[in-house]
């Protein structure tokens, strides 16, 4: 029948139109998604031994900020970022190294001499001298560099830094 033939032909055309649209959409859309998130997938690790300076330059009993920079290639460009750790030498042999990055949302904590605690300026977290949480929102103590992440070579203090 002409009529029913017509209708099924219409349906066919509708189907094809939809399919063609979907194919073009997918052919552009899927690569586009990958295109946009690619840098996140390829973010390179930055693990390396980082020298912090001569061990003897850190005063015993006082947390001292040591900063260092790491450069990574981001896309076409080399980016230099700075990181900080607090070095606390409790004795000639014992050294405690804490990351200065607040475990809440990553602001930088400061050592407050009067209160003898680390204070995060963002949401007022407080950490004790050993990095333990005294108050505020942080879920865990300050990150520590311990054991095989620390070494002393020729009087120089090195830590094994894991970026990313």
């Amino acid at each position, binding site marked *: 029948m002409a009529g029913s033939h017509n209708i099924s032909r219409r349906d066919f055309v509708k189907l094809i139109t939809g399919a063609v649209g979907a194919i073009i959409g997918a052919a552009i859309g899927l690569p586009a998604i990958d295109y946009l998130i690619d840098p996140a997938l390829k973010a390179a690790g930055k693990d390396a031994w980082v020298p912090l300076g001569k061990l003897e330059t850190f005063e015993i009993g006082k947390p001292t900020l040591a900063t260092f920079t790491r450069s990574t290639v981001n896309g076409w460009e080399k*980016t230099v970022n700075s990181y900080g750790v607090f070095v606390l030498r409790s004795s000639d042999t014992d050294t405690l190294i804490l990351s200065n990055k607040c475990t809440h949302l990553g602001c930088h904590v400061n050592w407050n001499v009067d209160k003898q605690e680390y204070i995060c300026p963002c949401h007022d977290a407080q950490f004790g001298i050993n990095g333990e949480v005294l108050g505020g929102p942080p879920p865990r103590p300050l990150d520590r560099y311990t054991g095989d992440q620390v070494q002393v070579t020729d009087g120089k203090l090195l830590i094994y830094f894991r970026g990313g």
Partner: protein
Amino acid sequence: MWKKLFAWLDERLALNELYKATLDRPEPKGNWWNTLGSASLFLFLLQGVTGIFLSVYYTPSPDHAFDSIQYIMNGVAFGWLIRGIHHWGATLMVLVVFIHMLRVFVTASYKYPRELTWLIGVGLLLCTLGMGFTGYLLPWDQKAYWATTVATSIAGSVPIIGSFIMKALRGGTDLSALTLSRFFAAHIWMLPAVLAGLIGVHLFLIIKHGESEFPGKDD
């Protein structure tokens, strides 16, 4: 002469019909609170115009973004005005859009038949906030850099997929040239495109259903 020209154009563009459909519409008795939506639209257009002007000199790279803004502020004639309007316009736009939403809530204008208009409106609010968030990084100054560092690590606190979202926002593990260029793209192309599209639908729905009347005692 003018009449003829108008008739000729009308024949082809249906100007009269357009005029009737969009401008010569009946409206319920007006209310000053109802001007806030068009004020938001005005601010959006103003942001668009000043933003386009800013992009003439602005350079989205960590080496040059800051200097190009300094140049806009101090070097170019009326650069301070264009940037000043864009800067404060962003603040006012957030404020006006939010109060517009409150007005719609208080007069219960989101109820039948305007549910969709509200839904689109929430999308508009989010896009506006997104514009503010992405625009904040563009001057590449201390405030911009560190606020964005912390804001993106907020996304990183989501369980499981958080660190992926953070890297996708930043385009890597840290803020870098990639972050700036993707924020720039979002700020001047993607979000404005979405905003413009949503505004189009928003306006269509408003014309279709008319502005709601101020609720009376028996409504």
